[in-house]
């Protein structure tokens, strides 16, 4: 716990964090603005679920993985660049302790961004008004979706965290983040069970019919057939493998 508190303390006055928050806010506002500008008679925005899935897609399809990739890279690489790692090892902080505290911070960041966007959506629901399904049950349903996204996307990004721990610069892990996203953008349906980010979509689709529709729009109409438990196993297997690799790299390196 102390490690996580300290990790958060390190982010004081950090521009990257504030920029990520500002962009998240803008993405949320963009969805709300769309909800305000489209009539409730249009099938594009006749339900509150249209608003929250739009904001969710805006956030998690590209922005969240990229933001988390950059955040993870800065989180790990800055320690190396500022030479603070050696000060930490001398204390001593174990390599796995440091790794898990940083991953915890990445998950926390992801959850905060999702809950923040969720709050904007709920606010937007009131502002835009006239949503017939704007009730506690739908709001709760959307909250679960946001929490799931917030928790699973960072775990799906652990291969990028590995790149961040093993690289000697910002370039490779940030470049890898984009490369990691490309196949998911092109053919998510065919990568479920293999690519963690695509597998996350498989889990969303099992949550509710609204989420299933949202995923279908991502997969260009292909219906997800893979079971959510298999998707979950795939995400965690890849995550565990890259966690082990990251800790090995941290242990083997000279400082």
């Amino acid at each position, binding site marked *: 716990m102390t490690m996580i508190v300290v990790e958060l303390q390190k982010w004081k006055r950090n521009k990257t964090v504030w920029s990520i928050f500002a962009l998240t806010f803008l993405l949320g506002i963009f969805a709300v603005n769309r909800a305000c500008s489209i009539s409730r008679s249009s099938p594009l925005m006749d339900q509150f679920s249209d608003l929250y899935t739009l904001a969710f897609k805006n956030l998690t399809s590209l922005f969240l993985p990229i933001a988390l990739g950059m955040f993870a890279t800065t989180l790990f690489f800055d320690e190396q660049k*500022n030479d603070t790692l050696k000060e930490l090892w001398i204390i001593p902080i174990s390599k796995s302790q440091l790794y898990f505290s940083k991953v915890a911070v990445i998950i926390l960041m992801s959850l905060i961004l999702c809950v923040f966007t969720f709050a904007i959506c709920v606010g937007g629901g009131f502002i835009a008004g006239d949503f017939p399904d704007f009730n506690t049950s739908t709001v709760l349903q959307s909250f679960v979706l946001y929490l799931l996204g917030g928790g699973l996307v960072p775990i799906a990004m652990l291969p990028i965290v590995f790149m961040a721990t093993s690289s000697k610069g910002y370039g490779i892990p940030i470049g890898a983040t984009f490369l990691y996203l490309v196949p998911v953008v092109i053919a998510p349906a065919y990568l479920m069970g293999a690519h963690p980010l695509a597998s996350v979509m498989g889990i969303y689709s099992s949550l509710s019919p609204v989420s299933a529709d949202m995923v279908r729009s991502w997969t260009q109409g292909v219906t997800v057939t893979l079971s959510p438990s298999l998707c979950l196993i795939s995400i965690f297997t890849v995550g565990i493998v890259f966690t082990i690799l990251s800790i090995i790299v941290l242990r083997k390196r000279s400082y």
Partner: protein
Amino acid sequence: MNNFVIETKQLTKVYGEQDVVKAVNIHVKKGRIYGLLGRNGAGKTTIMKMILGLTPITSGKVDVFGQDIKGREKQVFPRIGAIIETPGFYPNLTGTENLEIFAKLRGTVGPNAVKKALEVVGLPYKDKKLFSKYSLGMKQRLGIANAILHDPELLILDEPTNGLDPIGIAEMRNFIKELSVERGKTILISSHILSEIALLADDIGIIDHGLLLEENSMKELKKKNRKYILLQVSDVSKAALILEHQFHLVDYSVHDDQTLRIYDTCLDMAEINKALIVQDIAVISSQVCNDTLEDYFKKITGGEGIA
């Protein structure tokens, strides 16, 4: 159990095909300042990094406080304070905020420790200046403050006066001396500046191209390098007897079967020569020598480079 706080046994580091540290055995005694002297790139920092587990040891072993450090970092490291190369801190935080982070992570730091540590090194407490705006000297001071924050028994300081101005260097020297003399800390310090080590260290290890060329007490080294009369004679043992009986000489050393060093330079060389010749001992040469520490280091490292 021995009296060594740090003892390395055949410590070796190989990077690729390059031997950076070659079978080094250093012995740092409790309560003393051990100066590791060598040129830039001699292997001083690598030795310190291996002691602190910052770089894997290729072969050999490091004992700190009488125990092998491998696997005992959690017990041993809290008793050590260190600066290796330039101190690393978070640039977006102030000095106080940085130290508070390390104090929190150490968990064993007493109340006001941050304030006290900053006072000791002459940096302001709760100052608003960010670490990124610090001068090199201020960064070095903050590094020292971090190293002493938890009142460690052993300090490992890699070129701690780097970047300090002359007054800062003198202050740092006094501070290190005080830590050793008044607080009984054991200190391993590295430098490429001979004069700095000569003023500070009780014991010295000279390293060059990864090899520990000499390990000795400063007292012994100074003795080796004081003024002396170099005498080359045909029969050293006979000459020694004459010097002892006729000149009541005790302070001398025999170097080979022809060479003697007489450290009492007040003796009259002409008188000595006369006494030896009378006793049928041929005097090949006699001269007053005055090696400095620098000459000595140059001699044993086989070149220049130590300022």
